[in-house]
């Protein structure tokens, strides 16, 4: 078998590459979110399907129109799909499909394209889209419904457990979960029996008791945004991202670490908290904190390149998120915390690079 001239395309050394490529990483990120999508559809039925579909379709369509204008088709790199998925994950189910569609279009058109497309965006497009929705439709974005399995009917509106607990601060109950139970927040039978089993078989031996309600938080038997509905699936997806080394682990760990420490010391405005006695578990598992920390804050384009600076970036997000959650009147502070640090990233890099950046290797001769 002989090959003639120009049989092989011109390539440059190196001829080998790491298996990770930009589009592969983006596709894997989208793929690991699939269980979250499926679970949320199981919980909310049509109320979830319309949101996921409208957001993703709008993102893909906007990207297609933009690509058509520039005559350079980029749908294959998967970034538009991921943006659409992440925007939808912050939307409450049963919201008018127009809102996620508008948020995704804003993310792709204004934040991504106008600032230079992939690699040029100055903040995470999906977070910017979410902030856009919060700013324009503040009421609709806070209208949550209970999952069908829990309420027994479709679309029974309810506030999220996080906002609900916030309203109960100072009620005198010793634990958050007890307080919200007292106030009549629904609890699933599954949680009741599973928590009882865990307490009897494991925690009682350790002298501890898991209050009812955490299992519901983890499996989404509560009201909340679509991405929050499958906390267990989000955690699993995050482990995959870390194991494949697709994200800088420093960022989510710094965010969750600084947030947890501050929440533990000062509390996050929940009932039954005192100084050094904040409810860390509740603060971490409520809301979209984990999803945002692993999928949005780690966006390489809008986070620092250097790992040490990325740690500082993560710590700052954790602190800001805590401040917004503790004293702000909007419980989902993480979106704004990340956006603020996205914008500060260039400044952070310019100031800290000389101190923390890579040092030239010592030459011997």
């Amino acid at each position, binding site marked *: 078998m002989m090959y003639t001239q120009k049989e092989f395309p011109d390539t440059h050394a190196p001829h080998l590459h790491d298996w990770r490529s930009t589009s592969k990483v983006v596709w894997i990120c989208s793929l690991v979110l699939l269980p979250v999508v499926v679970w949320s559809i199981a919980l909310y039925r049509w109320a979830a399907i319309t949101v996921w579909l409208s957001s993703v379709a709008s993102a893909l369509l906007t990207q297609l129109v933009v690509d058509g204008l520039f005559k350079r088709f980029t749908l294959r790199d998967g970034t538009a799909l991921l943006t659409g998925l992440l925007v939808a994950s912050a939307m409450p189910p049963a919201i008018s499909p127009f809102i996620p569609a508008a948020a995704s279009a804003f993310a792709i058109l204004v934040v991504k394209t106008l600032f230079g497309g992939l690699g040029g965006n100055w903040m995470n497009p999906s977070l910017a889209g979410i902030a856009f929705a919060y700013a324009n439709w503040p009421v609709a974005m806070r209208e949550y419904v209970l999952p069908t399995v829990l309420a027994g009917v479709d679309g029974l509106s309810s506030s999220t457990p996080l906002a609900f607990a916030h309203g109960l601060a100072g009620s005198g109950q010793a634990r958050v979960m007890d307080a919200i139970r007292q106030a009549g927040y629904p609890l699933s039978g599954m949680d009741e029996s599973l928590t009882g089993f865990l307490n009897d078989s494991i925690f009682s031996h350790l002298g501890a008791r898991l209050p009812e309600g955490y299992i519901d938080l983890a499996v989404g038997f509560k009201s909340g945004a679509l991405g929050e509905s499958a906390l267990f699936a989000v955690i699993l997806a995050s482990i995959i991202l870390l194991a494949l080394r697709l994200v800088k682990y420093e960022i989510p760990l710094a965010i969750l670490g600084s947030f947890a420490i501050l929440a533990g010391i000062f509390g996050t405005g929940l009932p039954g908290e005192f100084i050094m006695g904040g409810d860390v578990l509740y603060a971490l598992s409520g809301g979209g904190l984990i999803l945002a920390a692993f999928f949005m804050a780690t966006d390489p384009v809008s986070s620092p390149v250097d790992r040490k600076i990325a740690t500082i970036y993560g710590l700052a997000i954790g602190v800001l998120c805590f401040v917004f959650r503790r004293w702000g009147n909007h419980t989902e502070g993480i979106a704004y915390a990340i956006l603020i640090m996205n914008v500060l990233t260039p400044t952070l890099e310019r100031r800290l690079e000389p101190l923390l950046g890579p040092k*030239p290797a010592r030459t011997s001769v």
Partner: protein
Amino acid sequence: MSNVRSFRHGGILLPQRIHFDHGPIENAFLPINAIVVLNSASTGRTSRIAVTEGEEVREGQLIARFDGKGTLNAHSPIPGIVRKIIAGKNADGTAVSTITISLAGSFSVLGKKPERYLWKSLNKTDIMHIVQEKGVARVSSGESLYDILHDMRGTSAPRFVLNALEMDPYCRAEEAILLERSADIVDACAILKKILQTATMTVALGESFPEAEVASLLNLAEKAEVHFEIQRFRRRYPQDMPSLIDRTLSRNSGKAVVSLMLEPSTMAALHDAVVSNKAHIEQYVYIGGGAVKESRILKARIGTPIGDLFEESGGFTGRPEVIVVNDPLRGTMAGNLDVAVEKTTRAILALTHDETHSARELPCVRCGACVRACPEGLKPWALNKYAMAGLVGEAADRGLYRCTSCGACAYACWSRIPLVDRFERMKSQGQS
């Protein structure tokens, strides 16, 4: 085992894919037509042609004479008739001269018992003369070994390192040569000792080199009155680069020494030249890659088309995406299978897409993989920004000229940006 050494920052861990048991190294079939390239791989300068078209040449006969520093003597790899002499230009404008010899006549080297000269009676000048006469090149760079040794005359007690390291997932030729021809290589070390007057010779070995073989190597060295110091190195690319071996070795001592690093394949050529009176007309070539049926090492004549060697290894099992000459991270791409084996050809690889993981170039997403990979502590992603903006001066301020073009950054790049290629272009722009 003595402690395993490595450099401090950066580098990449390449998957160790190829399990490779080599039997005795066999000779490749002689080519029907041998194409001898007369340009030095390091300088590009051409040797003076000493034959005419139609002339009959013997095996090992001088066909081109060195023409000043940076050129080499070239010898006919096969007995035959000079078919064609081309002195022309490549597509990219660089001068290239080749002599094509067609196989004919009788063999004077092949099948004969190798001669054994008693080199110990020769003095330094005689040996240097032989090295020049036989056209021995440093296999890793293509430089004339005579030039290298000539330049080192003035240095007192240079450090000599026998570099058997190969850090990419394929090439295993150097360790195999060291195992197969250990006695000859130790002899060559003794020859070098006479030229360089060095007391200690460092042997750089990978961490997987069999311990039992080390003992026999030391035994041979003792008999030849050479003192070997074994240094083990961790498998981490690009540890095999002379600058990184130097840095790793002098980390503890802190002393700046002038080092000479040669590979077992060069040492084998040196031995053959001095002891067996053979010109540098043979080259050990590793043939491998995912598209090749059977990976092996062959001793091929200079000028053999690489297609012949692939064929001798069972041919291709699938369509290769790219054919690479030498190291897959620094080597060059072969445009077709008529490319001939040169004095610098150590490996030919037929790589499939599953191995190259090639993809379309995308904009930088600032993932930071290049920063972690760079052994020189540079920020390749930032240098790339300057390259794209045409700011060579800015890039130079940020260490462009410290870049050794090892390719670790471009290997790791998520967006498949041809970083090394871009830096090379910027460097040549800055110099002109």
